[in-house]
């Protein structure tokens, strides 16, 4: 499975990663912090990385599991 890591010190809870993940990997805490909950769905497309305006998401693609 891929790893999706959110740097909560840099994250501003804008919800962009949540909104635009094509496969809805993220859920959100009450205060808006994104939680990469459904990692199993992650395609490793890295759009969350590129879309995060705060350099707060990292994705480590599980090379074996890559589709």
């Amino acid at each position, binding site marked *: 499975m891929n790893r999706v890591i959110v740097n909560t*010190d*840099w994250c501003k809870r804008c*919800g962009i990663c949540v*909104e635009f993940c094509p496969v809805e990997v993220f859920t959100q805490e009450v205060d808006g912090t994104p939680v990469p909950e459904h990692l199993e769905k992650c395609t490793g497309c890295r*759009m969350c990385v590129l879309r995060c*305006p*705060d*350099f707060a998401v990292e994705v480590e693609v599980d090379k074996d599991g890559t589709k």
Partner: protein
Amino acid sequence: MSNMKFDDYLVKNKFPLFWCGGCGNGNVLGAIVRAFEELQLDRKNTVVVTGIGCWGKADDYINTNAFHGTHGRALAFATGIKLANPELKVLVLMGDGDGATIGGNHLIHAARRNVDLTAIVVNNLNYGMTGGQYSGTTPEASYTSTSPYGHIEQGFDLCKLVEGAGAPYVARGSVYNIVQLQKLIVEALNKKGFSFVEAIAPCPTHFGRRNGMKTGPKMLNWIKENSVNIKQAEKLSPEEREKKFVLGKFVDRDKEDYSTKYEKIFAIAENAE
């Protein structure tokens, strides 16, 4: 030089970024440093010149050489820098207020003069830094802190303007189409001569809030819905097209840049003496 990763170009001890949550500036910054990585730019030979505005703070996060001047004048400072040392790679980062409203004259003359600079204007359709007043690119009928009854001016089509001024490379991307944006920036950096990239970006705090799009995602969706590719745009009527952000590359032609031409002047002048 060793292999540089995109975040090797970032000043990470200044993070988290100054910008609001959902602000598009961070995305453009990302596209730029990723373009740096792609090109393996030499920090020492690179100068980032910024104006004043939210986007104007971008140089705080880039660890090349930097020049942070006055509102609207970045291109003029950059012209001096580049002409004094043509070996430098000079990027000029400006807001729509900075680069196209107060700084419009430097923009068109830089385009005309064809100094080898890469100008990146983040167009968030208003003055973010000073509280969301209208700028030269604010769309007609939108609301800003100084158009409380709806804006009555048309905004510039910046790419048309810069093309009209004679620039050899002109393109528009958006923060939504982030991969394309990075590609355009790479092309622009590779271009010898004046290159111009406009990046449509959200300012949820001001433009968004006053126009029913308080959050980053809402603004991004709006940008997405109002963008068309340059190819698709050809199929639209002029009226339809005027209301859209047309994305893509508008101009890419070869023109000798200023410094190259100046070399010839040196030769003539020496003989003239």
